[in-house]
């Protein structure tokens, strides 16, 4: 059981890191660009 929770929590972290990288490189709509 503990192993399962551990795996799920860590998979959550990997998904989160992937999502952050994707959002970082994703193109931003022109109107949100500034300066």
């Amino acid at each position: 059981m503990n192993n399962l929770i551990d795996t799920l929590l860590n998979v959550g972290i990997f998904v989160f890191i992937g999502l952050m990288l994707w959002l970082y490189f994703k193109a931003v709509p022109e109107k949100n660009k500034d300066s």
Partner: protein
Amino acid sequence: MFRNPLLLTALSLTAAVSVWGLIDTQGLAEFAAGMVTVTLKSRGWFVMLTASMMLIVSIWLALSRFGRIKLGRSEDEPEFSTFSWLAMMFAAGMGVGLLFYGAAEPISHFLFLNQGMPAQDAASQALFLTYFHWGLHAWAIYGLTGLVIAYFMFRRQAPPLISSPVRIVFGDKPWTRTIGWIMDLLAIYAIAIGLAGSIALGVFQVQDGVAALFNIQGAGLGLGLTIFAVLCLAYTLPLLVDLSKGMGALSNTAILIAISLMLFVLLVGPTHFFMRGIVEGFGNYFTHVLSQGFQTYPFHQEAVDNYFTDWTLNYMLWWLAWAPFVGVFIARISKGRTIREFLLGVLLAPTVFSIFWFGIFGGMGFYQGAANLLDKTVVQTNINSTTFLLLETMPLSRLTIAATVLAAFLFIVTSVVSAAYVLAMFSTGGDQNPPVKVKLMWGVILGALGLVMILSGSAEAVRQIIALSANPFVFIIIFIIMCLLKALKNERTP
């Protein structure tokens, strides 16, 4: 006010935790401990990696071309002198924790490490660990969070909210509104729990100081609750009227008392011994700080692993829990400074001060093997009385104990008042002059949460509850830092 869903949800969530704690204090403490153990064992590596990466990103930003970007318009000048900027920042970030852990933390580490290594190595390593917990990593967490808020507040004219970076960078869309709402809610929750924790730690500290001052034996809950009642009265008044300048003066008084106390111990105690410890500490710290940030002890025995979880990981989560509150505060006082000035000031000045502080108070515990003379069970079971036990070995002990009690009291009052302000601002969509009744309501909730933590009776339980509330925050901070880095890609640097 009651049409604001964020405020209502945040109030209900924190009030629910207070009620749970009041009805079943032990149950809440055990639940927090259980959850923290499970999540920290699984995510410990991620928390350490995040703290280390925040330090590396801070150093990179400070030294890169982005360092020249001003937090504000090009004609904006800093509002405060550099000294008072650093003093205010330090008081907000560390406050009562310094008084609480000054002597106790190095001695606790020493007693643990001395089981497996000679006393001289254990003392040096104990100071290093303490510096590590209070040094660059802690301030990188605060500094980078503060930088994100300051950048979007002063350069993009966004309200000072944790959700602002997401809305500015990705536009006003249903998903950014939903995520932003959850982020603000969790920030409010983390601040409320973190602050309530520091109320409890402060009350424990004042309680033991008063007991030492008046020779009260076995001072228990009664004394703690009396101090808590006085504290509630003391912070209610400033919430009713706008005393922003007066609060600044109180916070400066607290920091001045703390500095005087440090200088007193340095000069009256064995000065050369302290200075040798501090110089050695500087070297040790700056040589090993980066590698220690990646240390997660996977190949050590369970006792070491547990010690790492109980101290290092808890500290990192503690700084993360406080980051939205301290971040907003640092951001507000930093308009007109460049990113380089901001980050180098936030990272270096408090770290150097902490090395002096812990070098002196920790050094006092180690002088002539004093750590071995202290009652180990007192240090391990009642950590807050360690500072007073050591002060009692010096001249003018009644005066220094009274000063410590006064400074602890002032630190808590100023923290609660500013936290009630930040909470009210967050829960009213970034209103920089939130209504008095909202501030007052947060004052009451902070008081109730503080009471729960006092009833839990131990600093350990308080730390677990804080760590639990900070758990989701590690993700939120990474998210807003990513937004900052993405926004910086479009900046033309001067």
